[in-house]
């Protein structure tokens, strides 16, 4: 079963890995930060080794986006960001796993302080 893991975040300045630029992450004691970073590397390596990772990408600054809308019968193109929300889509992982429980487990380990990690099923 395929799932998309979406990382919603707002690193300041925009950068990757997002944790390096999130106050909530940086405020953690050093050993917690190290543990979270190690966990992230571990789950990523595990996904690769098990043949569960399809792809993953880090996205550019949301203000660098271009928005294409339909207005008054024609396309209207403006600069981003798409939403003025607290968080933006910062990156994603597409995975193919055996069960929903496994997808939740992976997403759980991807999440960290200062951002929201979303798990969505992929339709087929």
């Amino acid at each position, binding site marked *: *079963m395929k799932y998309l893991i979406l990382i919603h975040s707002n690193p300041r300045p925009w950068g990757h890995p997002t944790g390096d630029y999130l106050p909530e992450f940086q405020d953690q004691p050093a050993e917690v930060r190290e543990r979270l970073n190690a966990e992230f590397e571990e789950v990523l390596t595990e996904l*690769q*080794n*098990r*043949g*569960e*990772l*399809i*792809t993953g990408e880090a996205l550019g600054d949301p203000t660098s986006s271009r928005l294409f809308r339909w207005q008054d019968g024609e396309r209207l193109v403006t600069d981003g960001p798409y939403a003025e929300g607290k968080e933006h889509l910062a990156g994603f992982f597409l995975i*193919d796993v*055996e069960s929903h429980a496994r997808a939740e487990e992976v997403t759980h380990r991807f999440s960290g302080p200062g951002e929201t990690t979303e798990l969505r*099923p*992929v*339709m*087929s």
Partner: protein
Amino acid sequence: MDEWEDVWRRQTPHVLAALVRRHGRFADCEDAVQEAMFAASVQWPREGAPRDPRGWLVRVASRRLIDQVRSEASRWAREERLAQLRETGPARSTDDDPLHLMILCCHPALTKASQVALMLRAVGGLTTSEVAAGFLVPESTMAQRISRAKATLTRHGATFPAPAPQEEATRMAAVRHAVALLYTEAHTRSSGPVITDAALTGEALRLARELVRARPADPENLGLLALLLLTQARAASRTDGGEIVPLEQQDRTRWDVGRIAEGVALIEAALPVGPVGEFQLQAAIAAVHAEARTWPDTDWTQIAELYRLLDAVAPSLSVTLGRSAALARVHGPDAGLATLDPLASRHARSHRLQAVRGHLLAEAGRREEAVAALTEAARLTRSIPEQRYLNRVVANLAVPGP
């Protein structure tokens, strides 16, 4: 598939078995066989097939295996391993090779998805890129999955030829489930190139035939092949322009009578043998549907009874749902709904439960509840055609009838 490809792919399990029997090292042998098949794909169309294709493939694969060891191992380990590799007996192969390889590939330490992928490569002779295309994942992902599966087999000391006779029955059951899973995966696929689906359903049928060929006395093997044939017989009428057509509305003149006849003959041969397992019962249900000229002609009493038996040997949510739907045909929608109520809390996230409930509620004239259940089913399903179908049913219910 062109004629050459067919020749070398049919040889795959025999060549692999001969190699493993001679050298051990299943994982390395499997790679070497893939390389030999690639060599065949280059050479045979150009120069014609060798007189003894199997012998040719075994020779080339053995050479690749030795090259591989030579390039990988450190000098001292290399000498030792090469000496081991040269301690060769004849490259024997037996009629049971495909079956034993299927059993090896369906080792309980592997996930279902890995079992299927490995079996397609080691027994079906598909390349990693073909398997990857079949499951709509990148080749690198599939390559990793297959190499991990092989490493897991090595770690568990899984050897070839596979298990003791008393263990064979249990292990063959796992093979049947993997073949059924492959078929279902390919059959219900909605995205991806259509040609891929046909290739994978064809592979599933081929593997099911191989099981019957190897162990024709096992009635469950006959049941599995019958089930796949009877299901495949309806494939052409299942969709219309990409939209799902429910069984009730299918054009039965488009059903494949040849496959139905073969499937019915198989299940009729299997049932008297006993014991009657889950695949025979599923095939028997499919046969009752296949033999009904119209939807109202269907023998629902018999289908309900077969589901009751199936529930006893292999209980699952979908069996209960099938039984509820059949009971509703025999005794009316309320009888079906009564069997669903106890499931509601445990399977709240099941789109299939909500879909069956919704249909029965609609039949019972409880329109609002039907719309709620079917809307929930549409929300929960992960299949685009099914979601479109359910959305359509909801839209039709929402418009009051004439």
